[in-house]
């Protein structure tokens, strides 16, 4: 099976659960947002990616002139908050597989706990010196239980490295909102289950570039918002 399919399916299943939980919580706690049925779809103009070798199919975090960006280019589209956090912390996962982070770019809502399972047959040592979140999980193997995890409370961008494998890099984008989605490689996205009203819609493209525009969402309708 292609890595892309495995990625997508895993991503989708994981996040469907998260979104469902958030959605239910929201409904129960806030009658004002009883019917969050609005959605937005569009296209983000992603940076032109140089033709990648066929073998490189998974996403990596690459740096160029001091800018960290996923490769091939990918955008995170999210509705600017703040939105209330879910009562029970969400759990996300970022595995180390084949000497790379999987996924390499992980958007989460603040307060989410992220697990870092080691799926390789070697040690990894995940750490971050980013001011947003400093941690060092130390060395562990795939049989480490419980799976080492960290909870990210502060919004911001966190750079993850492996102390053993200098090339491994990942980004966790900690957001103040539960409404976010990753675009597909062509830049198309669809963000559903949004509360109607005027909102600021943002598209994170790399560590230096975040586009934004104001959208007006109507209940039951799908707005169109492209980021040129």
């Amino acid at each position, binding site marked *: 099976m292609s890595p892309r399919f495995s990625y997508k399916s895993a991503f989708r299943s994981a996040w469907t659960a998260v979104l469902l939980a958030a959605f239910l919580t929201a409904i129960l706690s806030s009658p004002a947002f009883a019917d969050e049925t609005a959605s937005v779809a569009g296209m983000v103009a992603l940076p032109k990616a140089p033709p990648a070798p066929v073998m490189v199919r998974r996403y990596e975090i690459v*740096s*160029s*002139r*001091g*800018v*960290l960006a996923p490769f091939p280019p990918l955008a995170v589209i999210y509705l600017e908050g703040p939105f209330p956090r879910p009562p029970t912390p969400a759990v996300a996962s970022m595995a180390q597989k084949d000497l790379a982070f999987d996924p390499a770019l992980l958007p989460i809502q603040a307060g989410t706990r992220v697990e870092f399972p080691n799926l390789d047959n070697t040690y990894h040592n995940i*750490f*971050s*010196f*980013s*001011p947003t979140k*400093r941690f060092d999980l130390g060395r562990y193997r795939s049989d480490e239980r419980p799976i080492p995890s960290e909870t990210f409370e502060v919004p911001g961008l966190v*750079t993850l*490295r*492996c*102390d*053993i*494998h*200098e090339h491994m890099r990942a980004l966790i984008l900690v957001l103040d909102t539960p409404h976010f989605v990753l675009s597909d490689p062509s830049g198309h996205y669809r963000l559903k289950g949004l509360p109607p009203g005027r909102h600021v819609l943002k598209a994170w493209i790399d560590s230096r570039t975040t586009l934004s525009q104001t959208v007006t969402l109507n209940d039951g309708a799908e707005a169109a918002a492209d980021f040129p």
Partner: protein
Amino acid sequence: MSAEPKAAGNGFGAFRIRVLLAMMLLVSAVAGGGLWFAQRNAADEARGEFQREFSAALASTRSVREVRHALLAERARALARRPRIHAALEDGAPELLYPSAHDELADVLGGADAGMAGLPYALHARFYRFLDAHGAVIPPPVPLHAGSAEAGTPDTGMLGAEEESRLALPGLPEEPQIGYLPRGGAADGGLDEVIAMPIVSSENGDRIAAIVLGFRPAEFAGAEDIHSGIWAAGRLHLTSLSSRGQELLSAEMDRETARPGHPEGSFTTQADGAPELLFFTRLNPGSRFPPAYQVSLFPLANLRAHQQRLLWQFGGAAAVLLVAAFGASHLLAGRLSRPVERLAADSEEHRSGRVRAEAALETTSRELARSARFSADASHQLKTPVTVLRAGLEEMLAVRDLQPEQREEIASLIHQTFRLASIIDDLLLLSRMDAGRLRLNLVGVNLSDLIAGWLDDLGALPDGHALDIKTDYPAALPVLGEARYTTLILQNLLENARKYNRVGGNIRVTARHEGDWITVAIGNTGRPIPPSSREHIFERFHRGNAGEDVPGHGLGLNLARELARLHGGDLRLVRSEGDWTEFELSLRSAEAQSAVLKVQEA
């Protein structure tokens, strides 16, 4: 005469000495030249070998050092790639730089002091520091335990403020830089071998920082008599030398390294009183750290001793050779000069003999000339008075009133004047011949006519001898001669034959051809010439034992022989014994010679 042989002896001695000197000079020059070249070659060889040995030792040291530098660089490069260090620098956590580096450097640091210190090639760092993007030292965190004079922590390695400031570089390098930095203020503070490795950002490829690692400089144990040290920042670190010696060499190194563009060089110097060859080579060519040189001292004492030994050996060989050459030269000069001396002695004898002979010859010829001149002078001086005398006598004879006795007396006197004139003529002729002034005009002369003419004259003479004359000769006897002088020969011979005859004796004249010669034999009876006189009859004024009654003046035979020889012939006494005396005259035949003469005249 005694001085000459002595001078000659001196000459021989001088000659021998000259030969000896020349040979000695030649042999000395050749031997000296050869030895000089050989010695120089040997010295060059020794120096070359020394240099090869030295170069090999230096090359091995250099390659060890290069390996070490490569190892240090590899260590530093591995550190510069560490993710934690990058994370601290790039992810905005500068305060975590030194602590995180400490973890990474755990195996590089620490162990150095415990047990590994003795290892000369230890690759354990003494300290480490980071440089920021401008090359300035990023200060390590303040030590936890206050009161320490030095900056840094035991983790990062302790450095004085001054030492730490020396680590700074004017901008970050692209390549690792090697430096040798003095430690502390004391003379024996030692050196730190530092390597500065740039840290390249994984985000943008820029050089964002550098890590500087300090090591204990390696002390290479090269060849046993080579002492190596490091000269850096104007100070020499060479533990085998006294501090005074190090200072002196330092000053020399200051001068030598002041000339730019020479990463290495060598010079001869004194180190602690011993001659040494100092070779220096830049340890960190192109480095941004101050230049440092490896200094190697090779003792020249061995080389000097070796060269001295060579010199002695060659000097000894030269002396032996010279002595041998002297002996050989002496012998050879003696052998060479001996024949020359003999030759010189011989030639000396010859010369003196010749001188004597020449002197005698000179005397003889002088006397001859004098006598010839005398004869000529005498003849000329005498001829005139004789003529005057005869003229006077003839006048007296013409006087009429003379007594017959007086007349006879005067006639006798006149006859004497003729004799006198004849003698004078003969003398004149002889003197001309002696002087070589008489030249015969040789033509064909018939000898028979001359003989017949004389015989006629003889018959006309009043003669008391009553001689019987026999002749036997052909009618034609052509000889080469001049009639006047040829006649004179015959006249003398025939006159003698008549004069020295006895009464009633006879004369025999025979002539015959003998090849190219015509021989005339004239014999007469009479008393023979005694044997004791026979050798002298052809000498002048010799009259043998002829009685005074026999007329003559002793010039006849002499004149006849001289004239015969002038004709190319000869006159010999053939026989004189018993009652018979015979002369033989040989003259060249005109028939045989006419052809030759004609040719000569043509």
